[in-house]
């Protein structure tokens, strides 16, 4: 696989008030790569990927996606980039007021208004099949379990056929069995859609399954970088503490 | 999504439409009570004084509200045109000789224009035409009239009080009449005299009625009657003579008549008179001149002396 960088982050800084969350993050993600960012709560993992999609404005640093600097884009150009990126939120973030079908149709209809209803329905069914939840099409988000919400959330990001998917704590708040199901789903999606992924997690099992490269974030900087095996056998006690 | 849409969209539509209907119905009704909507026509009238009439005040016909004032504007320094907007359906009841007047309505004293129907004309008023108006009796005029009569009353009462004061304080005739005892006595005396006089008059008439009295004789004796008759016929004759004389006078042959009627004579008489007048005048002048002439002064002096002498002699006598 040739190395083609799709995401380049250089010297990213962000602080909330006096709390300096990010103090110079540098990372590069190549096309087809699955990067896992490990870190403890509050280490700035989520902030990093939220900066990446423009949800949070960075204080300093360069954010390059597909060769374009996020900070220099206007709203329209940013939205064009956003359409190529899927973002799976920690809570799933399904729209409460809409059924699963409407949740999925919402983005699709918005960006492709010329699409006929049958075509929209066909695409919805396709992504639901991919996440294995065809039967939930007419339920409301409040009727779904936590794992189902995550899967529908993933389905919603998949419907716009993204090139990059950012997973924010995909297994958080789930029991181990459901978490493994989600991990498998992520793997199958990576294969099927040929996406580049950044997976943020503190679940080491998830990291092991989904990532082919792992970074550990500490105090707003990248502490360690390497494959699962490399890090498991790291000389650093602090790094090894993740794996126990 | 479509399924759920149809569930609520009709309710929303109903809600909005009924709400807007209520609003527009209210607007319409307010408008129709102000005649802004619906078919109306305009009438104009002129007033000297609108006494506080305002735009949007009501117009009444026989006590029924038929319209409102649309416009009030000056056309000269002493007259104001009032434009009224009136419902079309009452137009047939307003004839060309209808009269407009300004009155007050209700407790709050809103001004209204009242149209009183005329009775002679059969023609219905035209749109935008003028009708005559009756000026309201102005309170101010009323007050000034009232003030005049009050002033008069004041003068009268003042004089009355003066008068009664004088009576009470015993000056003047009336007071004397009413209060002087001497006057009363003399009045009594004259009354007594009068009584006496009337008594004698009674006696006199009694005597007159007596058959032997001169007067009675005069009235009753046939001799006297004859002589009276004779003298009366003489008198008749003389009047007849006078008649003939005046007739001849009028006929115009006599000198007198000529004098009175002939214009030529009158003219010559006139000129004679003027000549005479100038003659005497000149004589007067001459005499005056003579008086001043030193030659004749002596003569005049002598004459004067003589005159004096005669006068002295006369007085001595």
């Amino acid at each position, binding site marked *: 696989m040739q190395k083609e960088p799709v995401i380049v982050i250089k010297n990213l800084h962000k602080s909330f008030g006096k709390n300096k969350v990010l103090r110079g993050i540098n990372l590069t993600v190549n096309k087809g790569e699955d990067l896992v960012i490990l870190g403890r709560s509050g280490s700035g993992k989520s902030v990093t990927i939220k900066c990446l999609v423009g949800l949070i404005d960075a204080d300093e640093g360069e954010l390059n996606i597909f060769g374009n600097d996020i900070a220099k884009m206007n709203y329209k150009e940013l939205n064009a980039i956003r359409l190529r990126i899927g973002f799976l939120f920690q809570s799933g973030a399904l*729209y*409460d*007021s809409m059924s699963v079908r409407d949740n999925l149709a919402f983005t699709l209809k*918005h960006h492709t208004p010329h699409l006929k209803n049958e075509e929209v329905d066909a695409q919805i069914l396709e992504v639901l099949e991919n996440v294995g939840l065809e039967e939930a099409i007419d339920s409301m988000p409040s009727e779904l379990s936590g794992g189902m919400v995550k899967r529908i959330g993933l389905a919603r990001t998949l419907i716009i056929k993204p090139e990059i998917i950012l997973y924010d704590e995909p297994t958080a708040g789930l029991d181990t069995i459901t978490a493994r199901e989600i991990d498998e789903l992520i793997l199958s999606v990576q294969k099927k859609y040929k996406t580049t992924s950044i997976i943020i997690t503190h679940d080491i099992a998830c990291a092991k399954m989904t990532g082919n490269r792992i970074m550990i974030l500490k105090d707003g900087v990248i502490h360690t970088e390497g494959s699962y095996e490399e890090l498991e056998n790291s000389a650093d006690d602090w790094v090894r503490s993740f794996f126990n | 999504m479509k399924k759920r849409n149809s569930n609520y969209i009709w309710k*929303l539509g109903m809600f*909005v439409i009924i709400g807007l209907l209520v609003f527009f119905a*209210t607007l319409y009704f307010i408008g129709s009570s102000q005649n802004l909507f619906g078919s109306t026509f305009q009438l104009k009238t002129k007033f000297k004084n609108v006494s506080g009439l305002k735009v949007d005040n009501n117009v009444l016909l026989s006590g029924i509200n038929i319209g409102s004032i649309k416009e009030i504007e000056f056309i000269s320094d002493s007259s104001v045109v009032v434009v009224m907007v009136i419902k079309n359906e009452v137009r047939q009841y307003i004839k060309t000789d209808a009269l407009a007047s300004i009155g007050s309505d209700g407790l709050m004293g809103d001004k209204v224009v009242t149209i009183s129907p005329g009775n002679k004309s059969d023609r219905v008023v035209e749109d935008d035409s003028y009708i005559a108006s009756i000026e309201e009796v102005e309170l101010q005029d009323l007050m000034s009239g009232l003030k005049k009569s009050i002033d008069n009353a004041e003068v009268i009462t003042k004089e009355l009080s003066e008068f009664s004061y004088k009576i009470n304080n015993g000056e003047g005739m009336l007071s004397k009449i009413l209060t002087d005892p001497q006057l009363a006595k003399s009045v009594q005396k004259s009354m007594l005299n009068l009584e006496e006089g009337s008594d004698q008059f009674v006696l006199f008439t009694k005597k007159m009625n007596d058959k032997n009295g001169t007067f009675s004789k005069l009235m009753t004796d046939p001799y006297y009657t004859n002589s009276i008759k004779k003298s009366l016929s003489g008198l008749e004759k003389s009047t007849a003579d006078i008649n003939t004389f005046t007739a001849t006078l009028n006929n115009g042959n006599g000198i007198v008549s000529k004098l009175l009627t002939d214009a030529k004579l009158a003219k010559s008489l006139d000129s004679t008179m003027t000549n005479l007048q100038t003659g005497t005048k000149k004589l007067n002048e001459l005499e005056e001149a003579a008086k001043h002439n030193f030659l004749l002064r002596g003569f005049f002096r002598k004459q004067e002396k003589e005159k004096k002498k005669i006068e002295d002699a006369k007085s001595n006598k």
Partner: protein
Amino acid sequence: MIAYLKKNFYEAGKLSMFAGRFFREIFTRPFYSNEFIRQCYAIGFKSLPLVSITGFIMGLVLTIQSRPTMTKFGAESWLPSMVSLSLIREIAPVITALICAGKIASGIGAELGSMKVTEQIDAMEVSAINPYKYLVNTRILATTIMIPILVFYADFIGIFGGYIGYNVHGSLGLFRYFSEVIEHLDFLDLLPATIKTFFFGFFIGLIGCYKGFNAKKGTASVGMAANSAVVLSSLIIFIIDMLAVQITDLFF
């Protein structure tokens, strides 16, 4: 003290910018008409029972309460027009707006607040959908249009309540009552009152959205957003009402 003032000025400035964004974005495509209609339904139709009941009770109570005074002045026949005038000019708009501030502003505040907390607004943002347009514009526009319509209902039902209240002691036909009411009404009674209800609606929507949109993280902030939305919008309703009365007084 200065910090407190600064905080309030900061809030006011943010609110103004939020309102400014509404006017900037209302004229650009796309417009989410489905969401707008849904919000109209939720705000207008669903508030109707509440507004009707309060309007009816206001008309009824106002008539019954004013009757003794009016009778004292021998102006009992003025009761229908007086009650309807005060309803149309002041009471119906303000009461309806306050009821809606309680129901709608808190609802919007809580809804958007929870959407913010559960990252739904962020989700919309990263799906390249402008959440401001979709969530805020539709809601503000819906309140701006629906509140006046609710006020028309409140006017009408309130006046009808006045009719019932009048007939508790007196007797007057429905037609006579309404013609009495209409006769003393003027466009000047109706129009300024209607115009100010648009402002009421706008601010109810604006403040509900603002408070919800700016909710912090955590479920507690959702409750706070709803609460402060009600408080602020009620306050602003009274301030607008005062301004509206003064402006109306100035011009007419």
